[in-house]
């Protein structure tokens, strides 16, 4: 069984795909993407993509790390096994600071990495666009706009006409067929 994943419009140059992306955004599509072999500056702005949510994961990781470091020192030094070391108090926020600080950085880094995986929905071993016969060109010298069939504004005829109005090199139907 295979069903239509969406339309792909192929472009020859970065400016062409940049302007096409602006048109698609203005047309109001939500479920669509641009495929390029290299990062294009300002493309996220042209596509209307908001800033990444990854910093939220980083902040959460950092705060959890800091609290973990302080709690560890408090649990061991004051709660579980109080021991006088060098005349210092059982717990103070000062001496466990390096531990809390290191854990802040460590868990913030984990949060960043994990957040990047979650927001990008990685790992992703299969994507319907891979079925496109010129897919390899998209990692080399060609650019593409893909509009998914699941988009609310999608219609088989009108979306095709809309993409043709952007003057792509070609338009291909992408089908979602996973080999059993």
């Amino acid at each position: 069984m295979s069903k239509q994943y969406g339309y792909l419009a192929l472009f020859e140059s970065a400016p062409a795909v940049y302007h096409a992306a602006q048109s698609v955004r203005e047309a109001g599509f939500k479920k669509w993407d641009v495929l390029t072999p290299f990062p294009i500056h300002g493309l996220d702005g042209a596509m209307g993509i908001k800033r990444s949510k990854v910093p939220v994961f980083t902040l959460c990781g950092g705060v959890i790390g800091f609290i973990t470091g302080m709690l560890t020192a408090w649990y061991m030094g004051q709660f579980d096994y109080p021991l006088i070391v060098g005349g210092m108090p059982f717990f103070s926020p000062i001496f466990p600071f390096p531990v809390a600080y290191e854990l802040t950085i460590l868990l913030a880094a984990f949060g960043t990495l994990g957040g990047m995986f979650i927001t990008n929905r990685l790992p992703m071993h299969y994507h319907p666009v891979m079925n496109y016969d010129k897919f390899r060109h998209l990692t080399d010298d060609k650019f593409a706009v893909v509009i998914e069939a699941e988009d609310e504004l999608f219609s088989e005829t009108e979306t095709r006409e809309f993409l043709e109005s952007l003057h792509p090199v070609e338009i291909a139907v992408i089908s979602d067929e996973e080999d059993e």
Partner: protein
Amino acid sequence: MSSDKKSIQFLIGGLILIALSVVGLFVGSEADPSRPFIGWLLGISFWLSILIGMLFLVMIWWMFDSGWSVIVRRQLEHAISAFPYLAIIFLPLILLSLFSSDGGQVPWIWMNSEAIVPGGHGTVAEDSLYVAKSGFLSQSFFVVRYVIYFCVWSGLAYFFRKWSFNMDKTGDHVNVHRSRKLAAVGLFLCAFATTFAAFDWFKTLNYHWFSTMYGVWFFAACMRAALSATVLSLFYLATREDRLKGIVKPVHFYMIGCLMLAFTVFWAYISFSQYFLIYNANIPEETFWYNMREMNHDGSKNSWWWVSLGLVFFHFFVPFIYLLWYKNKFVMRIRVVAIWILVFHLLDLYWNIVPQELATDSHGGYTVRQFGVHFVDITMLLGVGGVVIWAFLKSAAKERPIPIRDPRIEESINCHE
């Protein structure tokens, strides 16, 4: 012509305020005659720290062949022309230390061999810690070092300015190569000069103390002050039709904002590490420096306790959280945090320079000089500021607003994230 007039007004205003400060020097109290001179030191240190940070930034940008910063660099080149004037304004402190070191007015107590130092077993001359450090802490060497520091700063500033302005006129790339080579050497020279200046002028106010991190603290403080001052001056210039209007873009503020965040963390890292090591080692020769910033002789909390907490929360924590946000690195929001950091940078200088154990008897009794704003603090801050702004405007009126023939000028103007 009008900008010339304006800059002269700053010079005249500055000189009047400095003259007022000279009058203020003679109104110190009997118990604490050196306090007005501390104010003199404070006023210079605030502006000097900004200029030192700017000199470091110029050299770092040359060193890394940085592209985005080229149009910002030119503004800093204007500002660092003020080093020689600061050397002149510093002179009264040097003359005082040479000719009147036993009068009790000189801020550096080690210059007065008759002075009684709390915790020092008698006078300075009898103090074993002074005797051990006397090779470094001699008045003539102190003056020589003052000359060396200002020669290093003024000299580096002179050459970076000269070659950068030459580049505008001739377009000869040898100017760029020279600047990059000098930056490689100059970073070391400036690092040494800044470190030892912090030792000489701030740390030896309590010469018993030991801390190897002190120079790095001053470097971090300088960088924060310089970046904040850069933001404010860029805002001023970006409103001027004949200056940087339409040239400075939000992205330049974003880049500086990132550096501000980095140096906020760095300042906290250094300041905390210094405290942390002394706290853990718990040796009286080191802890007394922090003790007087927390409590009086009898153990009761003093005014510096609140200043200390203010630095932790408002000089680190608030700017740190604030600058983490992407949107806070643009337009009005970064201007707010730049002013904030400069205010607390000044408080940080107060905290480092002003506290002092003032001996009340010869048996180790003392009172701590409390936090307070002296008349000379204010007049010197504004007065030196007037002179620095005059030097900036004077240089800016003479040279082009951006280095038009710099090889990376296009990259800087079309800078993006």
